[in-house]
């Protein structure tokens, strides 16, 4: 093992760890803060909250995003809600329970200390958002409302209709905008980070491409914060926004940052099924719908009757049957596999047979159509736009789709990667969700990282650095910029026959078939042959038109797909080496008689952290052992 994986977890009881870290950490005195410059890449929930909070503290901040405005980061699309251990319901919730649910939900593959801190600061996030004017749903008494999400038996999810991500991001964006207006943050939109500059082992800057003029530029800083989101689009089809990508995370990995658990991907059970080859992305139907919708398939194989014609006793409400205590609110990995199983057994619905029903009839009868419309109106509208079907009168058809990636750049308790000075937040890091994320916990994590964790932990690093020690005139900047320039020229000079999307689709198919909802040794080994072959063909036969010195969307995509073609291989390798099933990582060889995931805690109770060894070299697998002192390692049961 060559990576230094010191998790830097503070000692002491779990309840006191965060307080003691804040107390032990070195501070930067207020007058000195303005001498330090922090580069924040990403303006989603994690990036926008970090950039604004750091600027409020007095640091000079420069923030970058590839979208045309920070407000359009992928976080905007989150629908269902955000968890917090407020216990406003008096239903037995607590910081401890949120911690416990998250560790268990992650199938015991997350770091306890991080998860506990997440649960602790969750309550402050809601306060912060409300103070910013985020219009969460309220009850008639004027107090905040809650709903339930999967993997929990309490109601702790705060929401803003089906647009929670939008409202939270607009809150963070307004805080960021305030700092931009004050001149404390310099914002660079339509600007893509293409590489990290490491000087004497420390992250000291980035190379970016201005997506309008094509110009490559260098930015130096005293620390770099990456909040660049997840890599679900390696599958081509996912619920992620079209421009989400792994480039920032992958390129820092190639510069020395360990990448943890890349095979942990979340397949969300309730998405609108694929309708044809033209499909460019998949649309999520929020998990919150499972509060009021019941999932079923016909009991009989090949039953092609209209759903309304199938009598109650010929329906299989399979989640309620298999998991009576959680029912339709079973966690995502479990609900997805159950849907796959139902369809694999020939009971799937819709033209392709790859679908199950999500039925609101009972809730509409009980609560009335208006009540359902008030809760989920925008989701029902979205569904009917896409399918031309009316979900008020006919059950929705849904199927699992790639949604979220738990793996990411390895970080310690301070959110610092294996490269000193490089911090990673939000979906881009690996830290809090283990092998499966619970619903409504990504928004919580992104905002926890940005508003509350990084403002505290970054000081410990900066306090030991001389501000402005390395400028963009350092030769390392020019060198790396030259490498990026060469890469761009190479992409434009191939002038082959196949489009970038064509390659991306092929990669997606390999990943979905062999590294998707179920994985096995033989399939992963095939993928490990097919991906390098596809990559080689890409570099011989891709066609990218246009020039490097203008707005060129094919070129942007080509760079991202080139990285996916390398990254996909690491995912399959990680999936192959993890010889157990846990959470979203289901290895067919490790399952119980009734098809549940079987973990191997003796050999795999650890995070796998990959180290890049240079082009053409095999990456090295390092491990960070996970210790469970507060939650007992147990078989996860939702029965």
């Amino acid at each position, binding site marked *: 093992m060559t990576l230094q994986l010191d998790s830097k977890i503070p000692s002491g009881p779990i309840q006191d760890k965060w307080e003691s870290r804040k107390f032990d950490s070195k501070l930067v005195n207020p007058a000195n803060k303005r001498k330090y410059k922090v580069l924040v890449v990403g303006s989603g929930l994690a990036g926008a909250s970090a950039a604004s909070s750091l600027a409020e503290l007095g640091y000079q901040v420069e923030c970058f995003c590839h979208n045309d405005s920070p407000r359009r980061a992928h976080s*905007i699309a989150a629908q269902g809600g955000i968890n917090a251990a407020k216990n406003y319901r008096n239903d037995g919730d607590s910081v401890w329970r949120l911690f416990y649910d998250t560790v268990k939900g992650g199938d015991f593959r997350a770091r306890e200390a991080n998860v506990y801190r997440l649960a602790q600061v969750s309550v402050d996030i809601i306060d912060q958002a409300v103070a910013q004017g985020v219009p*969460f749903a*309220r009850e008639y008494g004027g107090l905040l409302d809650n709903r339930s999400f999967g993997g929990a038996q309490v109601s702790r999810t705060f929401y803003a209709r089906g647009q929670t991500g939008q409202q939270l991001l607009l809150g963070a964006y307004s*805080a960021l905008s305030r700092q931009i207006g004050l001149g404390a943050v310099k914002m660079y939109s339509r600007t893509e980070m293409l590489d990290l500059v490491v000087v004497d082992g420390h992250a000291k800057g980035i190379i970016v491409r201005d997506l309008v003029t094509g110009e490559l530029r260098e930015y130096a800083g005293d620390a770099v914060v990456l909040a660049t989101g997840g890599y679900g689009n390696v599958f081509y089809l996912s619920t992620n*926004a079209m421009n989400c990508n792994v480039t920032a995370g992958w390129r820092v990995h190639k510069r020395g940052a360990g990448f943890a658990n890349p095979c942990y991907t979340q397949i969300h059970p309730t998405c609108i099924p694929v*309708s044809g080859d033209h499909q460019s992305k998949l649309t999520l139907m929020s998990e919150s719908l499972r509060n009021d919708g019941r999932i079923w398939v016909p009991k009989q194989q090949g039953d092609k009757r209209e759903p309304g014609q199938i009598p109650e006793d010929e329906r299989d409400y399979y989640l309620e049957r298999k998991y009576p205590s959680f029912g339709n609110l079973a966690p995502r990995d479990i609900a997805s596999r159950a849907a796959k199983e139902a369809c694999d057994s020939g009971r799937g619905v819709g033209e392709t047979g790859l679908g199950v029903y999500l039925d609101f009839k009972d809730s509409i009868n009980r609560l009335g159509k208006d009540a359902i419309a008030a809760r989920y109106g925008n989701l029902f509208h979205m569904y009917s736009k896409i399918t031309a079907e009316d979900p008020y009168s006919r059950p929705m058809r849904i199927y699992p789709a790639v949604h979220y990636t738990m793996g990411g750049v390895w970080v310690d308790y301070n959110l610092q990667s294996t490269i000193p000075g490089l911090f990673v937040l939000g979906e881009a890091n690996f830290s809090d969700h283990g092998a499966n994320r619970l619903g409504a916990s990504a928004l919580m994590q992104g905002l926890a990282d940005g508003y509350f964790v990084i403002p505290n932990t970054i000081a410990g690093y900066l306090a030991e650095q001389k501000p402005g020690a390395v400028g963009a005139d350092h030769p390392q900047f020019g060198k790396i910029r030259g490498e990026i320039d060469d890469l761009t020229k190479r992409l434009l000079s191939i002038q082959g026959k196949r*489009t970038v999307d064509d390659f991306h689709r092929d990669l997606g198919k390999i990943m979905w078939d062999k590294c998707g909802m179920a994985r096995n040794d033989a399939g992963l080994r095939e993928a490990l042959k097919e991906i390098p072959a596809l990559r080689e063909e890409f570099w011989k036969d891709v*066609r990218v038109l246009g020039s490097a010195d203008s*707005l060129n969307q094919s070129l942007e995509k080509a760079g991202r797909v080139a990285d996916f073609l390398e990254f996909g291989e690491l995912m399959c390798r990680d999936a192959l080496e993890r010889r157990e099933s846990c959470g979203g990582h289901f290895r067919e060889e490790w399952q119980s008689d009734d098809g549940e995931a079987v973990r191997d805690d003796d050999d795999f109770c650890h995070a796998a952290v990959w180290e890049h060894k240079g082009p053409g070299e095999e990456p090295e697998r390092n491990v960070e052992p996970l210790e469970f002192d507060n939650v007992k390692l147990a078989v996860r049961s939702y029965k």
Partner: protein
Amino acid sequence: MKVVLHIWRQSRPSTSQDFGQDGKMVRYELDDVSADMSFLEMLDILNERLTAKGEEPVAFDHDCREGICGTCSLMINGRPHGPERGTTACQLHMRSFQDGSEIWIEPWRAKSFPVLRDLVVDRGAFDRVVQAGAFISVNTGAAVDANAMPVPKADADKAFDAATCIGCGACVAACKNASAMLFAGAKVSHFLHLPQGQAERDRRVLNLVETMDKEGFGNCTNQYECEAACPKEIPVRVIADMNREYNRARIKS
């Protein structure tokens, strides 16, 4: 089905206010279009075919493809986001068009939104309006308990209705004056209906109006085209809210 497309092509950022100067409409024919395709998937196919022929694909902005990020911004047959009410271009499906249709696709046209290439415009002016005051000044960590300040549900709902604006710019594109009143009004109305928004209410509205003028957005002459074009159906009452707030703040100052 088959469609005939007329698409604005422009290879460099606009250099003048005269739209005709920098680009032109180009005709394309596309067959094998499926009614289940989204409008943007239809453009994807066009781009795949153009690339195969060695012609540069059409640049257009998009990201979420589910009507929430506000990135897509197409003028379709003279209407922002096309023919369907309450629908963004990315949520529009080809089943809304007839076989053999001719479809004209252009970028947003407004002085404050210069064209960068083909169908892509620069909406940075919206960000600058927000930076001028569309926020509540509360630093991280300074908040009181979320339930310390109850908000009547009716007020919260009003605030929410305004807050659903996705900042796409359709309102500006639809308005013959290229006014941003619906956009800015939505911001004012959102904060106006919340107790947290009261402290800065005067300053906010004055700064927003001043910045809109500076950015070159036009005045509102009550045409209501913005409301009809808004994919989130933000009502023009937010403009009334904003006018009332503006007059109030002016009198006080």
